[in-house]
């Protein structure tokens, strides 16, 4: 095989699978070896080029306007808004600055709930839960074992998060349910506190809380129907964190005015 013949083979079949004659020629021809090596270098370099590039947002905006002008968009946007509201809320929940604030705010909200619980009557279900009796140092040294008791010890610390269940035989609540209950309890304090009057910030915070509660309710309903939807679960957990952040911000504003 000659060099020109090899080139014809490459043109017709590419580089993937060369015939025996082509390989024999390559083994003996330095120029063709270099040629094939260069083509492979180009192919390898081409594979590193990005196959996708983000277009500017204005393209879709302009395109959508054109579609509406031509009447190609016909249906009302109720379904679209619901779809895009979900997506839009997901985008709202993503910013890293909010994520950084929610971690501390969630801890704050939990601390508020934990310190608040002894002032209120514990939920009915919690009374039916077995409590562990705290041992005094003397009892510990004597090796007294702890038995479950329905009578809470006198000096017991804050009780664990009460279980919002009607029946002792039911399983312990999921982390989501516990978080939801914790936040709902914290939210009860909000109307009782003097917030920052009727400022724009205050109005916006209340509006955000209403929107967030509606989103949480929708997520919870969706998860009941689709318990395997991990994306919705992730959104719900993030929404709980956002609510903790929001409640913390509202309480902070109220304490400032007292």
């Amino acid at each position, binding site marked *: 095989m000659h060099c020109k013949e090899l080139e014809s083979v490459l*043109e017709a079949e590419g580089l993937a699978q060369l015939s025996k004659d082509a390989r024999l020629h390559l083994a003996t021809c330095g*120029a063709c070896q270099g040629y094939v090596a260069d083509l492979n*270098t*180009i192919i390898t370099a081409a594979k590193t*080029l990005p196959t996708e590039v983000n277009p500017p947002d204005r393209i879709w905006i302009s*395109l959508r306007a054109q579609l509406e002008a031509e009447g*190609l968009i016909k249906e009302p946007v109720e379904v679209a808004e619901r779809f895009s509201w979900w997506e839009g809320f997901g985008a709202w929940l993503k910013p890293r600055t909010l994520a950084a604030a929610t971690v501390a705010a969630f801890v704050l909200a939990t601390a508020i709930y934990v310190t608040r619980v002894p002032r209120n009557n514990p939920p009915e279900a919690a009374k039916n839960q077995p409590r562990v009796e705290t041992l005094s140092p003397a009892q510990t040294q004597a090796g007294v074992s702890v038995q479950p008791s329905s009578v809470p010890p006198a000096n017991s610390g804050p009780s664990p998060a009460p279980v919002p269940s009607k029946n002792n035989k039911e399983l312990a609540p999921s982390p989501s349910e516990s978080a939801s209950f914790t936040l709902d309890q914290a939210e009860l304090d909000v109307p009782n506190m003097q917030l920052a009057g009727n400022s724009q910030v205050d109005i916006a915070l209340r509006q955000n809380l209403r929107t967030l509660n509606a989103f949480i309710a929708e997520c919870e309903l969706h998860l009941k129907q689709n318990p395997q939807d991990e994306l919705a679960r992730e959104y719900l957990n993030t929404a709980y964190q956002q609510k903790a952040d929001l409640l913390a911000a509202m309480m902070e504003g109220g304490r400032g005015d007292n």
Partner: protein
Amino acid sequence: MTEAEAIRLAQAGNAAAFEFLYQLHGRRVYALCLRMVGNPADAEDLMQEAFLQLFRKIATFRGESAFSTWLHRMTVNVVLMRLRKKSLPTDSLEETMEPDAENSGPKRDVGAPDLRLAGAVDRVNLERSIEQLPPGYRTVFVLHDVQGYEHNEIADIMGCSVGNSKSQLHKARTRLRELLQEEIRQQAREERKAAKTPTGSLE
């Protein structure tokens, strides 16, 4: 929402479905337009035009081919039409799209010493060289070696035969090799020139 559902809804005029399809395919289409024309302004116009044509005709889509193939076919047609209108003297679409034994594109100078490309090709000089390819070569190269389409898909997109697609690809690669070798030689000349300049002289 799946692509099939979005197509069905878009055929009924649903706005969210249009947006879904745009978001699903837009980045690849934009990348293709950008590589074909080399500047963002033209690429944006072409992308918008391609999607407009797609959405105007979406009611006629029956699913005989993959939706992405159909979209890319429209995109390539839009791009080539624009390039044809510009009609640069050095870019001959007919030459590049029709195999011709007389004018079969770049020829390798058999036996001549070649400059090796290994280690010398980077993304910048490759992109620059791709821009210099004739439109037909450029299309096939971008679709195959960059975007990863197979020859039968490229043949469908460009309305040519599989054999023609393979031939154009090989010619594109050979031409790129020449362009890259020239670029590397030019860089080497400039480096030698810079090295010869006495230290401290004003240039």
